[in-house]
Every structure is written in structure tokens, then in C-alpha cells.
């Protein structure tokens, strides 16, 4: 459901026309467009944005932890269209227990490492990812450091 002030935005309206059920909400703040997508639709939405609207670049994928709120996690995608000189931010909210989302590596191969990083540091699992391993930390590391309940001062020995 798009808010009123996005009814004029071409990218947001095109996305709503493509799949109205995929768009959960959206906002336009400080010149940046954010659209919240239903997690199960992320691959089809990304495919549409890339092939039909020209967002050829996936700038970055990262996570957010809103602990202790629920749904706790967010996966944030920043897309960039060079031709339209435009950027869009996509968000998917995931529950705190077993956060899982489909991988967008089939749309952009470059999503591979960004998703691995998000998996490593937030513990969000990406389904159908070709190589979902830790990337920054050693394979036997316990916990996911960027989660808010992971202490920075170090209670590990």
C-alpha cells in the first residue's frame, strides 16, 4: 500500500502496478525513496526493477537489527539505475526467530558476497544462495556480531 505522497513517484507507482501485493509500504524522505517489500516477493520485485526499470546495479545489501522490536530484522537493498540516475532502497522485514529470505543472486551475481556478509554478521539466512558461508569471520565463530544483543565490550573469553 503506497502512501499518498508516493503516488506521483514513477518508480513507486510502476512497482505498485507490477505487483500491488508486494509493496507493503513506502516513504520518500530526504530525497531518498524507500519501499518496503513483502519478503517472499523480493526476487520477482528485484527482477522487475532490474530488467524493466533499468536498475542494473545492486549497490549494496545489508541488514538491520531492531531488537527487541518484532519483526526484528530488516534486509536492506540499495539499487541504482545509471540511465535514470536514480536510486531506490528496498526493505524486507523478517522475524527474530530463524530469519530467512530468498537470495537475489539469480538477479545480480554481485549479491553473493553482500548476502554472505549479512549472513555472517546478522545471521539472516538466504535461501538458494550458491555459497552461503561466513565471509568476514572464521567458520567456527559463534554468534553474529552486528546483532544488538551481541556485546561489544566482550564477555567472550
Amino acid at each position, binding site marked *: 500500500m503506497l502512501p499518498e505522497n508516493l503516488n506521483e513517484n514513477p518508480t513507486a507507482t510502476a512497482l505498485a502496478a507490477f505487483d500491488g501485493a508486494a509493496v507493503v509500504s513506502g516513504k520518500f524522505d*530526504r530525497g531518498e525513496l*524507500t519501499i518496503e517489500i513483502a519478503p517472499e516477493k523480493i526476487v520477482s520485485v528485484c527482477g522487475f526493477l532490474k530488467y524493466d526499470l533499468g536498475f542494473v*546495479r545492486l549497490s549494496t545489501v545489508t541488514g538491520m537489527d531492531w531488537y527487541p522490536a518484532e519483526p526484528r530484522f530488516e534486509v536492506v537493498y*540499495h539499487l541504482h539505475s545509471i540511465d535514470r540516475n536514480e536510486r531506490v532502497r528496498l526493505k524486507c522485514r523478517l522475524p527474530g526467530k530463524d530469519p530467512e529470505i530468498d537470495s537475489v543472486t539469480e538477479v545480480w551475481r*554481485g*549479491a553473493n558476497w553482500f548476502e554472505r556478509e549479512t549472513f555472517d554478521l546478522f545471521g539472516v539466512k538466504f535461501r538458494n544462495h550458491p555459497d552461503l558461508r561466513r565471509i568476514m569471520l572464521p567458520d567456527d565463530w559463534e554468534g553474529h556480531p552486528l546483532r544488538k544483543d*551481541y556485546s*561489544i565490550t566482550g564477555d567472550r573469553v
Partner: protein
Amino acid sequence: MSDTVIPTIPDLAPGVEAEKATSAKARNITLNMGPQHPSTHGVLRLQLELDGETIVKCRPDIGYLHTGIEKEFEVKTYQQAVTLTDRIDYLAPLSNNLCYCLAVEKLLGLEIPPLAQWTRVMLTELTRLNSHLVWLGTHAIDIGAMSVFLYCFREREDILRIFEMYSGQRMMTSYFRIGGLALEPPRGWQQRVRTFIETFPSKVDEYEELLTNNRIWIGRTRGIGYMSIEDMLDLGITGPMLRAAGLQYDARKSQPYSSYEKFDFEIPTKTEGDVYARYQVRIEEMRQSARIVKQALEGMPGGRWTADAPHVVLPDREKMKTQMEALIYHFKIVTEGFRVPAGEVYQTIESPRGEVGYYVVSDGTTHPYRVHVRGPSFGNLQGVPRMVEGTLIADVIASIGSMDFVLGDCDR
């Protein structure tokens, strides 16, 4: 002596042939390049599966330099966190300072005075020169041209002296702060920058004389490490590598920040997309950066170097000692930092290596709720397998050298 049979090379040949005839799996060897390999410039590890001298598979392994900077952002105040951005990409500290400051300033809605904006442009362009000089020197030394390194570091020293003059630091400058600059531009900076920038183009000619028509250099770089624009966009590669393949994209032109729109410069491109083209693009970028620095030097506006925002910018020393209000602001900013309105911003700029992005999320407190850094080296390094698979092992050094990555930027 005459009884001894000395095996000749043809005698050995049948055995070698027999070994070659076994399955492909038995024939391939795996070679670990790095993490302590001088030409990986940091701690990159490449697992190379070799069939003879040809690379069948390449698996990059990163993370050796992961220091948890993104987590550390969350316990620093906004202004303190500037010092972390230096340490991300240690060859382009000011580019990272700038991107982070722009992101937070966007959240705060601050307007930065022209003097600060122009000084920022000038110093980030000097950073670009600094970074490209390190790249050129080390890349050339990897390929075997020793002397270029000495030439490049001669000019780099001048740039580092300019940084030291401005900020007191040669590398970890932290000179850009939220709201403007850390200190007033030092007295005599014009003279120092002018002396440097007026001779710099002739220095670039010197590097070109050593390399551009050098037969060995051309032999080692032309046609090596080719990547198409489609592959690079798909893999998230940005910066000079994209431009060397023919895509004229540069954030300084397409989404100007910090008054880049007021400067006259060109975006050099090539279409070959190989190591040699990347070299040519970066050489031309150095000339263009020198042009920008010169324009900044000549047209530098006057005025204040910090924004008119007493709740964010520390007051002058003099005011702090004489005015109660300034003292209160000083106390508040130093002890608890300033509050940033809730919201989120993704700011990107063109660093020497490509697209740097800072995603800053504020929850309305004095510390960032989350800062995500999109390092250009992280995106670029993903392309290594695509670039080197199927090529010869001797070309790996030239190929990855042309990417100009910094592992601190990649691992954060």
C-alpha cells in the same frame, strides 16, 4: 663415468605424458596465493586451481583484516565516528571522511559554507592523486618496473605533507568533521598547494615516459584481465575499472556532492577494458584531479569553515572562554554529543577506487543506530574469479593489481 647413464629429457618424457593422460582432477594442482603475498597488497588469499599454467578456478578468501568497524560505530558519538572512517580505506581517508560527513549532514539538514565545501573538494582530489600514485607505484613494481615506485612516492610525500599541514596527520587525517572542517585552513596552504600542483602534470609525464610506450609494460598489460561492462555491473564493480571498459559513469558528475558541479573536469574513458586501459584511465584521472585542485586553489571562496550550527559544531576557543552560551554548547557536545533526527540516509561518492556508500541510520540519539559501509574494494574483489579464470597464472598479479583494492576497505 662412461658406465653411468645420465637420463636425458626425452627419457623422462614418457612418464610425464603418462601422468598427463590421467584424469583431469589428478592433474590440477591447488595453489594458495596469500594471505601474506607481497603483491596482494594486504591480506587477500586466492585459492587457485591450476591446470598447468592456466587457472581453472579461483576462490578469493577475505576477512583477514576484519576489525568490526561497523559495530564500533554504534558506540561512538557521531563526531567521534569520523576517526573510524579514516581507518577503513587507509589510502583514501579523506574520501571516507567526506562520505560519512555528507551522510550525517544530510540527516541533520546542515548547510556547509562554500569555503569548507571547496576545501573538501580540493583535499579529496589530492587524496585521489595520493591513492592513484600508490596504486601506480605498487602495480608497476608488481609487474617489474622498479623505478616508477620511487617516482610516485616522491610526489606522494608532497601530498602527505599537505595533509599534515592541514590536519597534523599524514594519513589518518580526520580533517572533515560533521559541519565543516576540523580546523581553519592553515596559513600558507596556497603556496604549498600551488608549488605542488604546478609541477605535478610534468611529473605525470615522467611516469608516462617510463611506462606508456614501454614494450614490456604493454606486453604485460595489454589484453590482460579483460572484463565486459555487463559483467562488471552485474558483479558490482565500480570506479576506474568500469570507465576503462567504456561506461562514462562517475558520481562526481551524475550526482554531484560538495559543489563538484562548479568544477570543470572530464571523465576519462577507454573501451578496451584491459589492464592497460585501466592504467590509461587512472593516469588521465590524475591529470583531471590536478585540474580540479588548480581550480579550487584559484577560486577558493572566503568565509567560515564550519556551518552555522552551534548545537553541532564546537564553538571557537575564544567564545568558549568568554560566553556562557558557547561554554554550555561546548560542554554538551563534548560530553554527550549532538542528537541527530531519526531517519536513514544512503550517501555515495566517487572514491579513487569506485563507489563508496555510507548507509547511516539514526534513532534520534547521539550515537548512530547503525552505519553500513559499502566499500568499493568489497564489490570489486568479487570480480576476481570472473577476471582471472581461464587466464595464465603469470597474469594474475597484473589483473588483480589493476583492481586497486585496499583490504581494509574490503574487510572493514
